């Protein structure tokens, strides 16, 4: 077997082993815990909001849902990513795994990907689909907009939210590897989230190529974010933001890998 093939095979096995381990963890207690937690938090808060609020602008229910599916998963994502990267670095778990035939880049990518997949499934997709089922059936909402949004568009919206989650987890991973202090990392990423969501700040043009355009509530759009707009059949004009978010996520993870490869364990 050629040397390159051996390296490739070894790298693939090690990386897949780490990813598989992460995914298996989400199949167990951790996944169940997050599923119950996010279903309870999202559905309860959403029900409280739509069942009691006066909704003069129409489908605020879905705007509420989209906001929750941004904020909660991103907060959880930054805390879990910082804890995983910083915690495992300091307690020696990372050193143990890297003593196996696992490439450093593969370890970072597989760890973040496994965490992202589990969180996207339990904190975005499942609570989102459950809300999609019951939200149009709640009286005040049905009175304003009787038709439920198309399922296809809603699924694409959940995909967009998952990409936003990946962006913040990528940023957290990079900062965690550089700073290695979870408190500082969470504070910086929380500030980034706040900055990207606050419409009163003067945005430069380049911020339209970041998640900001997807997650901020633009008052000129009747209080909807672009993701909510998309659900309600408004033409989607934030493609550069999606491409920019994906590109930045890849850049964050690549940067994290570059720094990680130089660390001592």
């Amino acid at each position: 077997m050629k040397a390159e093939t051996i390296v490739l095979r070894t790298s693939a096995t090690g990386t897949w082993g780490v990813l598989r381990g992460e995914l298996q963890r989400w199949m167990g207690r951790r996944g169940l815990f997050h599923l119950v937690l996010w279903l309870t938090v999202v559905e309860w808060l959403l029900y409280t909001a739509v069942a009691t609020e006066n909704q003069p602008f129409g489908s605020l229910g879905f705007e509420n849902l989209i906001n929750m599916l941004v904020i909660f998963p991103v907060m959880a994502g930054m805390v879990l990513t910082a804890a995983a990267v910083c915690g495992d670095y300091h307690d020696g778990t990372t050193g143990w795994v890297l003593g196996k035939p696992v490439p450093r880049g593969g370890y970072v990518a597989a760890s973040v990907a496994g965490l992202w997949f589990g969180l996207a499934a339990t904190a975005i997709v499942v609570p989102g689909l459950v809300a999609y089922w019951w939200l149009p059936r709640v009286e005040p909402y049905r009175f304003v907009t009787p038709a439920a949004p198309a399922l296809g568009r809603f699924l694409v919206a959940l995909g967009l939210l998952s990409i936003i989650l990946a962006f913040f987890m990528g940023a957290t991973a990079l900062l965690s590897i550089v700073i290695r202090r979870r408190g500082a990392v969470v504070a910086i990423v929380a500030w980034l989230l706040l900055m990207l969501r606050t419409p009163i700040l003067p945005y430069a043009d380049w911020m339209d190529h970041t998640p900001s355009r997807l997650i901020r509530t633009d008052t000129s759009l009747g209080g909807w974010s672009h993701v909510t707009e998309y659900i309600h059949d408004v033409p989607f004009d934030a493609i550069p933001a999606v491409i920019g978010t994906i590109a930045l996520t890849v850049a964050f993870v690549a940067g994290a890998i570059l720094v990680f490869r130089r660390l001592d364990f």
Partner: protein
Amino acid sequence: MTDYAIEARSLSKRYRNVHALDGLSLDVAAGSICGFLGPNGAGKSTTMKILMGLIRPTSGHAFVLGHEVGKAGLVARARIGYLPQDPVFPAYLTVRGLVTYAARLYPGHPAGQALRRRVDNMLEQVGLADKARRRLAGLSGGERQRVGVAQALIADPDLVILDEPSAGLDPVGRRAMIDLIAGIGGDATVFYSTHILDDVERVSDSVVMLNHGKVVAQGPLASVLEVTGQDYVIGLRGDTTELRARLTAQPWVSTLVARNRGSVEQWQVQVSDAGIAARQLVPMLADGDHSVLQFHLTDRRLEDAYLQLIGGTDEG
């Protein structure tokens, strides 16, 4: 396979003003069981981590199983089983889960039932078969150490690097660990660090001694023991003044320590050249106004060599 499982040349590792390793060069023969000795802070763990690619040396080169560490470390690690010092494993895993997880990181690992059988066999070997379903968080220190050995050996490695595998074990556990290391020895090269010199004497065929980041002795156990010379214990009665003067004047006598045991004077004579001593010592003892009541040769001990090479004051 090369003649050496591990080769290191002029390895240095500096942390700011601290020289953890200072031009370390060592060779570990393939198929040997090599004990890696030295006081705390000598650089043993740093050396092992460099060999595993976990730490980059400031300068120098290391080759493991013929692959240069850093350039082809990944391929080499696929043939190495490693137990770090004070290992920390993901606490949410069970004993079987951890060993299975470790096995799946190696290319060509078995799958399904074959993997399960292999893991169960390994747990049986380290005496943890009855604790396979226990979570790691609930294990004692000794049990965790045995899990550590199981995960290091699960891929049937050509080289096993164990950083203080006996640390925290009770005497029974320590004996079991040493038997395990001796058992691995037939199939793989074992490079392990320890402070328990009796264990090294029992199972190792070679040793590397490290102090202040430098190798102070290495090679087959017998050759390292030679630095201590040999000790003769001699019991005498009568006037020994002249004999003592003649003996201490010999160039092959390193030290002579005398103790009074009642009416008997007991000497411990360390010689640097065993051959000359064997020829000349007995005739010298026969000449003089004294009686020889006791005469025997003591075993060479690794502890003596260690103390001589490293000194008794360095132990942290």
